[in-house]
Each structure stands twice: as structure tokens, then as C-alpha cells.
């Protein structure tokens, strides 16, 4: 283990720390069975109640409806699922994921199983925000494919997990609030092209 951030620290989320590697270590300590060396977090407020958002998310087969890079998620049993995810260059990467934490209506934690090409772990929280709905916060630790060069390539193809996470959360919000995902396509053919 490298350095962790010693208390006392401020109240800001770890993902916003200027001491990135120490923050990763500290964040890893808060997740059970953490995997991945890059930390990203994103929060979005969704004008719907927590239990509704939690229920949609917890059925992992729903995730492909707003996670653009996820081709599909197969549920293997109550704790394990198989992920098929688009990667740069028309390829896919696949891995199995396991739930590490489950608080009904509030939070889901996960980690990838041994041998995953893109080791990742994280936590998504659903916090009641009263009249404003729910604050959904995703914290993700991941190892980008093939190190630094892989990250650059992934970014070029917009498959970089941090970019993808922020766009996916926006789509989740659109779907939950409006019942659909906004598109500026004019024709079905354009829409299909955009998705690929």
C-alpha cells in the first residue's frame, strides 16, 4: 500500500483530491475488495424518488439502456453478473462482476472478478434529496485498458471510463426523468449510426 490521506482532511469527496494516488489508496480502503488504480466520481440529482432509481439500477439487465458502451449484462445469480462492454476498435471486453455491498434503496457496491480485462470496482449511492429528488453518486476505481497509451486511445474513441460514466449518468437521469433519452438524430438510420 502506498500513502493514504491522513486525517484531518477537508469534507470534499476523495475523487476531487489533488493528491491523486493517495486518494486512490484511501478510497480503496472504503470499498470492500477494491480493484483499479484510477479514481473517478460523479454526482447527478434526479427528480425521482430513491427507491425507484435503485430498483431500476439493481436490475442489471436495465443498465445497457443508458450505458452506451455496455452491450449487455447477463445476470448469473443474485450476486454475480456477466458484462459485455464495447472497447475501442470495434472490440468488446467481457468480465464477471460481483456485488460486495447492498443497502436496499440506498447503495450498491461491486467489484470485478479475478481475471477481468478491465479490473474495476465501485459504489453507487442513492441519497434522498427531498423535493429535488435523489442525489445519485457513482464512485469508480478502474484500470484503463493497456495503461497510459490505452487510455489515450480510449479517450479518442470516447470509451474512456470517466467520460463514459459522466455521460451514462446523464442518460440515466434523462431516462428516469423524461422517460426517454434525448437525441438530435433526425432519422432512425442516423440514430442507429450514433449508437455504434
Amino acid at each position, binding site marked *: 500500500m502506498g500513502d493514504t490521506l491522513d486525517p484531518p482532511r477537508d469534507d470534499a469527496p476523495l475523487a476531487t483530491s489533488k493528491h491523486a494516488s493517495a486518494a486512490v489508496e484511501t478510497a480503496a480502503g472504503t470499498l470492500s475488495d477494491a480493484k483499479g488504480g484510477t479514481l473517478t466520481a460523479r454526482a447527478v*440529482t434526479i*427528480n425521482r424518488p430513491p427507491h425507484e432509481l435503485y430498483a431500476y439500477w439493481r436490475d442489471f439487465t436495465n443498465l445497457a439502456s443508458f450505458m452506451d458502451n455496455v452491450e449487455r449484462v447477463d445476470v448469473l445469480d443474485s450476486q454475480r453478473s456477466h458484462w459485455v462492454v464495447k472497447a475501442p476498435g470495434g472490440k468488446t471486453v467481457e468480465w464477471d462482476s460481483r456485488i460486495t455491498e447492498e443497502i436496499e434503496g440506498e447503495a450498491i457496491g461491486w467489484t470485478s472478478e479475478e481475471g477481468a480485462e478491465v479490473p474495476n470496482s465501485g459504489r453507487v449511492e442513492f441519497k434522498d434529496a427531498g423535493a*429535488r*429528488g435523489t442525489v445519485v453518486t457513482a464512485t469508480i476505481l478502474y484500470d484503463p485498458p493497456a495503461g497510459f497509451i490505452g487510455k489515450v486511445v480510449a479517450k479518442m474513441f*470516447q470509451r474512456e471510463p470517466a*467520460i463514459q460514466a*459522466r*455521460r*451514462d449518468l*446523464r*442518460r440515466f*437521469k*434523462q431516462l428516469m*426523468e*423524461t*422517460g*426517454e*433519452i*434525448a*437525441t*438530435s*438524430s*433526425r*432519422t*432512425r*438510420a442516423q*440514430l442507429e449510426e450514433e449508437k455504434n
Partner: protein
Amino acid sequence: MRALTWHGKHDVRVDTVDDPEILNARDVIIKVTATAICGSDLHLYDGYIPTMQAGDILGHEFMGEVVEVGAKSTLKKGQRVVVPFTIACGSCYHCGKHQYSACDNGLPADNQDIGQEMYGMPMSGLFGYSHLTGGYAGGQAEFVRVPFSDVGPIVIPDGVPDEQVLFLSDILPTGWMAAENAQIEPGDTVAVWGCGPVGLFAVQSAFLMGAERVIAIDHFPHRLELAKRFGAETINYEETATYEALMLMTGGIGPDAVIDAVGLEAHGFFVDNVIDQIKASTFLGTDRTHSIRQAIIACRKGGRVSMPAVYGGFVDKFPLGAFMEKGLTLKTGQTHVQHYMPGLLNAIMEGKIDTTFLISHTLGLEDAPNGYKMFHDNQNEVTKVVLKPGLALAAE
């Protein structure tokens, strides 16, 4: 269908493109009966707005007949509607507060990155105004796909001509919101910089809100003439020293509220950024940043500044000291069109607001490139060009 498409600087063409289709349940397809060229379209025409792509369909002021409805639309086939230029979902927190131009969901998720980078957070989508504002196809076409049709479009009663209601799509609510942001009190003197469509509607709105005097400032004689028609006193800044005139006309107090309806005229992003970057020192460029400075200097102490004018990036030499010392209030923003449409439709029907005076030219859609050129080259006489897809090509 036929549509006015952008191909580059001063190059717009009417092309045949694929018809739009219903893609989401809340969509409708509108058959356009009337659409206008906006002053801000000229910035696309001049090539100032980045992220335009060859073939993009322009136009954000349009109305028409509903010809196809998605499963969750509340509209019916055959209804005539005016469509707001802002694309807003009606379901998010901001729409709930009627801050429609701040809608969280109007922009496709991928298009939200740029607004997040530039402004800290993305704004709503707009029709026909580059890929920064969503890349939505615009209304200068025979047909348009309109998302969130249960929230945006307003149904127009039979017998009301298109010309009377078309401007509900943008410039009338924008002028009205400008006056509302000036927080006018009875007896106020209001000064309006810029007598384009927004300024002229702000003049009318200011009087309706109780202003005693409105002073309109421009350099196009014909536009000043139109302002005078609605009761404004006028200043031609090419003939007159504006600040000195305002001081004399208000007994040394200054206008109680000032409205900058000049700005960069563009709906959105980047324009002044780009102009700054290329250090363009055209007279338009300097005039434009000048208007907000002059408005702040002329405004009375403790007065109000309303800025419907659009600024996209950074402005040099903003008189922050005068703004602070005089204790001014500034209100601004893209128009929350959906919020204002119903009340303004009533005002039109009751004859309180005149809209048709603005239209100087009506052309067929096939004539649109010519309309752009006319509008671009002669802003004194060409106050508003309306395009009607049904109209035959004008004889040469």
C-alpha cells in the same frame, strides 16, 4: 423533403434531405407553414459559430401543422402549433421552476460536455444552431422532428394567421423577458440599446409593464422609426452622443432601467470568444461590447440592467467598478420561452402586442438563400424575413 442547409461561410443551399422520423415517444413531426430568419442565424451565415457541419439544417423560429405524433405526445394530428426555440423536457428541477432554458435534459448527453467545460454546466438544447446546442435539425425545412412535444409547442386557435403568432417561438418572449428582467416600476424611464426585433418587442413590453418613457438607441433610421411608432423616444448614436443625450433627457438622473438588446445577437456560444481570438476589430464587434458598457455607465444609481443580448465567452473591459459602486442589479439569460408563450398568445389575441409590423419580406423556402443575403446586406430595411415552404419561387 426540402431544407435550408449550411455548407460554409455565406453558403447556404436548399437541398433535398431525408424526411425526419418519430424517434422518441414524446416526439411529433411538424409540417412547417412559416419560419423566420433570425439575426442570430446571420452569425452561422458569417461562419462565426464553431461545430457547424456541412448539411446542418438551420432555423429556430418556426411553426406548422402536426402531421405525426409519438405515443406519448399530447398533440393531435392537424393541430397548428408554434414551437419554442429552446428544447426543454418539462420534467427536471429547472423546468419545474419554469427555467426552461436551463433544462437538464434537452441536450443529448454527449453534447453536454462542451457546456460543462465552458460554463460549468450545460444548458438546454436549441433547434438549428450548431452541435454545441445539440445538433438538432432546424425549422427552415418542410418538416421538423420536435422532441418533448407535450411541453414545448403551443396550439394556435383556428383563424389566427401565422404571421401574427410566429414570433412566439423566440423574439417576442425574448423581448418580453428582457423587459421583465428590467423590473420596471410605474413611472420608470427605460433605455433600450438595439432596435432589432428583440429590442422592438422590449420597447412594446416595457410600456405594457408601466414604463412612462422608453428611449430607444440604434443607428438604423428605419428601425428607430419603428421604435417611435410604439411611443419610444429615439437616439441615433451615429448622430448623437448617447450618454450625454441620456443625461439631458433624464434630468441628470439616468434611466431607471437599461436593456442591452445588442450584444452579439447570437443564441449561444463562443461568438465573442471567437471574435476576441481573431482580434476582429470590425465596427460591429466593438459596438457590440460597447453597448453593455454604455448601458452600465448610463444607468441611474441603484438601477437595473437587463441583458437579453447574448454573450458567449469573455468580455474585455467590463465596468465592474461602476457596476458595484452604483449598486446595480443585472438580470439575464436565454429565454424561458415555454413559460411566456401562453400569456403572450393571449396578449396578441387581445391586440395588446403588434407582431406583424416587423415582417418586411416573405419568401418561399426555395428562396431562403436569397433571404439570407438580403438580410445580411441590408439590415436597415430588412427587419424580418419570413419563409413559407408552400410559397412558389419568386420571379427573378
